[in-house]
């Protein structure tokens, strides 16, 4: 029998230290146990078919959709990340297994490849925006927007949940290194 292990967090120690003297208007948390599946397909024609198969929930590039605890984040033309707090990777795909394989859509489980940080509070956006060369300001990076961008050579996927809450998907091996940059920025901000 496969063990069911509690998904571990990577930055909890750092976040605990930070939270003890967190500045006003900024709360940082690591999102635990999020299932992240990457779907891939090839060609524009498949995109439309997939959208139909997903009941119109395939977001356009740079956007996201959400439906009963499941989200879809699209940062590239022929890929989309399906995310869920409750479903396992297998369950998340199983729902659509038939239509996906009919369409030739493949999937890879990347749940363990990312560390997801949630930044909330009125300073959250400003901190992240000032670190990224990409414009993440409220007027231009609206709720629902998704961008994969590079912050001092760290690849991050940023998801705007609402005007004062953003999630950052960090590639796991870079997570602590990014945390150091974030801390530095917050301290001097």
């Amino acid at each position, binding site marked *: *029998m*496969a*063990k069911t*292990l509690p*998904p*571990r967090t990577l930055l909890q120690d750092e976040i605990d230290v930070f939270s003890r003297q967190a500045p006003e208007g900024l709360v940082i948390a690591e999102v635990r146990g999020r299932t992240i599946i*990457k779907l*891939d*397909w*090839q060609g524009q024609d498949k995109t439309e078919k997939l959208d139909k198969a997903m009941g119109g929930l395939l977001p356009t590039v740079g956007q996201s959709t959400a439906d009963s605890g499941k989200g879809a984040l699209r940062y590239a033309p*022929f890929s989309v990340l399906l995310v869920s707090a409750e479903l396992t990777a297998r369950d998340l795909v199983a729902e659509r297994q038939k239509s996906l394989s009919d369409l*030739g859509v*493949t999937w*890879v*489980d*990347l*749940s*363990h*490849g*990312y560390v997801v940080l949630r930044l909330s509070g009125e300073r959250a956006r400003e901190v992240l*925006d*000032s*670190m*990224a*060369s990409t*414009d993440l*300001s409220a*007027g*231009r990076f609206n709720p629902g927007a998704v961008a994969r961008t590079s912050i*001092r*050579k*760290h690849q991050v996927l940023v998801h705007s949940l609402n005007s004062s809450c953003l999630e950052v998907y960090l*590639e*796991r*091996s*870079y*997570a*602590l*290194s*990014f945390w*150091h*940059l974030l801390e*530095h*920025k917050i*301290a*001097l901000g």
Partner: protein
Amino acid sequence: MSASPQSHRLPSGGLIDRTQSLSFTFDGETYEGYEGDTLASALLANGVDLVGRSFKYHRPRGLLSAGSEEPNGLVRLGEGNRARPNLRATEIPLFDGLVARSQNAWPKLSFDLGALAGLAARYLKAGFYYKTFLWPAGAWPFYEKLIRRAAGLGQPPCGPDPAQHEHHHQTCELLVIGAGRAGLVAALEAAEQGRRLILCDERAELGGSLAWTRDPVDGLEPIAWWDQAVEKLEQNPKVTLLANTTAFSCQNLPLVLLEERRPGGNHRLWIVRADAVVLAGGAIERPLVFPGNDRPGIMLASAVRFYIRHYGVKPGQRAVIVTNNDSAYEALEDLKSADIQVAGLIDMRPAEAAPFRPDGVPVFANYEIAGTRGRKRLKGLTLRYGVDGSRVDLDCDLLLMSGGWTPNLQLYAQAGGRLMMEPQIGAHLPHDATTPLAVVGAAAGKGVSPTAAMPLAKGPMAFMDFQNDVTTDDLDLAMAEGYGDIEHLKRYTTTGMGTDQGKTSNINALSFVAARQGRSAEAVGHTTFRPPFTPVSLGAVAGPARGRDLAPTRRTPFHKANEKAGAVFVTAGDWLYPRHYPHNGEDMAAAIAREVRNTRRQVGVVDMSSLGKIDVQGPDAPTFLERVYCNNLANLAIGRVRYGLMLRADGILFDDGTVARLGETHFLLTTTTARAGEVWQHLERLHQCHWPDLDIRLTSVTDAWAALAIAGPRARDLLTALGPDFPVDKESFPMASVREGLLDGLPIRLYRVSFSGELGYEIHTPAGYAEDLWEAVDVAGAPLGLMPYGLEALDVMRLEKGHISVGTEIDGRTTPADLGLGKLVSRKKDFLGRSLFQRPYLQGKGRLQLVGLQPVDGQTVLPIGAMITAHTWQGTTQVSLGYLTASLYSPSLEHPIALALLKDGHDRLGDEVWAVSPLANQSVRAAVVSPHFFDPGGERLNG
């Protein structure tokens, strides 16, 4: 020189806060100033005339200006590692406890031995650096010492900068550079339209010349208008106001770089992307060029006005004004208000040009200055009448000069804007309407005084460029020596170089050159304007990228487990990788030897998570892989792994790794750690740019999986003890197998592969389970003698096996054939690199080929990096037959071994050669052997 406290402060007036007294030191003397002062104004208020020595001749120099154009007043601010050299005193806001020192003077400012250089002036003419290279022969080493000692301005601190610098990305709809009157107007207009904007100014206060001009704005006194304008902007949440912030680069619009100098010496680099940029940089007053125009007490007319009006400072007692335009006449009222006596106004133009006839001030029309006197402070002038050459002497301690105004267009020119010489003002204006950014106010020539073209003075020590000590004689000499082009003149004479980049000298120099060459200033052109506008601290450029945060650091999923196990880490690419795991008191060599022996005798575990891992799926995946690997993969069965070699299109070996077939159309590749990023890009490129018709999907899964390799004679015992849910005996799970399953309840992918040459397995598990896997392995391995081993031990074992590695043997020049892997290259299929791999040069004789080397004496480790020669090293030239790629003492074989690339090495097994290292002064006789030193038959591997 030291004066009574603030002896030169006016009893009232100025925008300083006289209730806030600040104490500071300059060259060890303590002074007082007020909140709102700059270091420059506070020094003047204390009667400090002398602020520096000139670069070449060490002449005494005082402040020329009140702004960023200052060529003379360069100081070292702060002490120890916080010290910053070459800061302009005119731009340093005064604070309590400020410590500053003058530069370029030894032993002290008032008595400087370097001033003797002034006596040697005739040897320091234009191009003196270059001439010392050439003549007299052999003298350069002597000059070099002198020049190196004298060269450069200021001294950088030696240790790490304790200040905290940062980068700040910002987008906006409008960026306004310069917060003088024109900049404020532009910002107010945009703010009213609701635009998101940034307004920056290099000075501590916004306002620019509003502080000292008298023309009313919108019916208000300039200062009253300024107050209400700034207030309006401050209250607008869409407006960011940045003082002490210099826009220094507009070269890559819409990207503009700003340096904000924050309290405590902390700098913030603003990386601004603006939809539109307005340049309101104002204009810079030009000095006049006449003999002895550099004595302390000779200042720009506008600077004197600035010091009086803005700072309530009285820069002298008895003044003379010299001008070639009307603007300097406005200084008369300011001088009067400061109770400064005016000994005369010299208007270099004919009498009728004067805008008005000032009361009680002798006017010398059509005069020029023939000379000045006073050693450390101006004492007087000699005038020469333009009509008959007759002379007049005037006593004064302050000279206000105005040679006209230069619109501040450096940033405009950086952005690619073309400049046009406007003879009316004797300076450049923006050329046409299609400009890269909008220019407003005095920078666009608005309100700039027309200037008479003047014959430029002759005579000794008529300085064109104060900071670089370039005189008119230097320019004449350079032109006589054939340097006629303005760009050549700049380099040869250094005019317009240095920290001020000729802000006060460029226009004068090119006007002078034009007059001498009998050409128009338009024809002479101008030198190229490049960033930065004013010098930027390296700290601001580096921002957070220093020390630990210099570059991204990647950590494997086992990082904490490795820490607990006592790993010493090493940086390998971006990765922080366990190098070795020393036991108590062990040095690195001992730890490595122990780790190797333990792995070869019992069992070891190594973190392999940094290997690149690429998931390949899709119906055309087999075709794709057949094309990108040079070895045959077509018959790779599901559940099997194969070693793979990838070539570049030019036939050179690119990377090696494994290809595992997980399903009919599902593969998992591993790459080397070093090339993981490049291989990923390479594959993506081939797919997207060249073979878009192949239906495949690539996903980098490096971060999603943790990988541990266990290796050694007891590896299978360990694996069995871990309780896999499938059989792992020799028959069921032979060499080069792969399968998915559970191990101690953890989902895994198990590979039977080995880099160490021992019976080995790689266990991959989702990264979040890494610590559980490590713990399980640790517990199960303890009774079997398991020890972790690091990168160094891994390298020793691969070398013992003669396995190739990226960076040493895969070096961007070798082919598989060179490395003894020619048999792997498929002769049946076509693949990327095949065609050019077959080039005669890569296939013929004379290639450097991989061999093993062993010292003939059986004990001397061959020097690392040694060249291979036919004879021992005797200090003479020898033909190189190749070189060593790796060399060490083998703990398993108990003698030294090395890998080398040797010319035609595959045919030379058994030969003896010399491994020579002139650097180590070592020559070792070595035998050429097979690179497979340890277990060449592979019995252990297949055990």
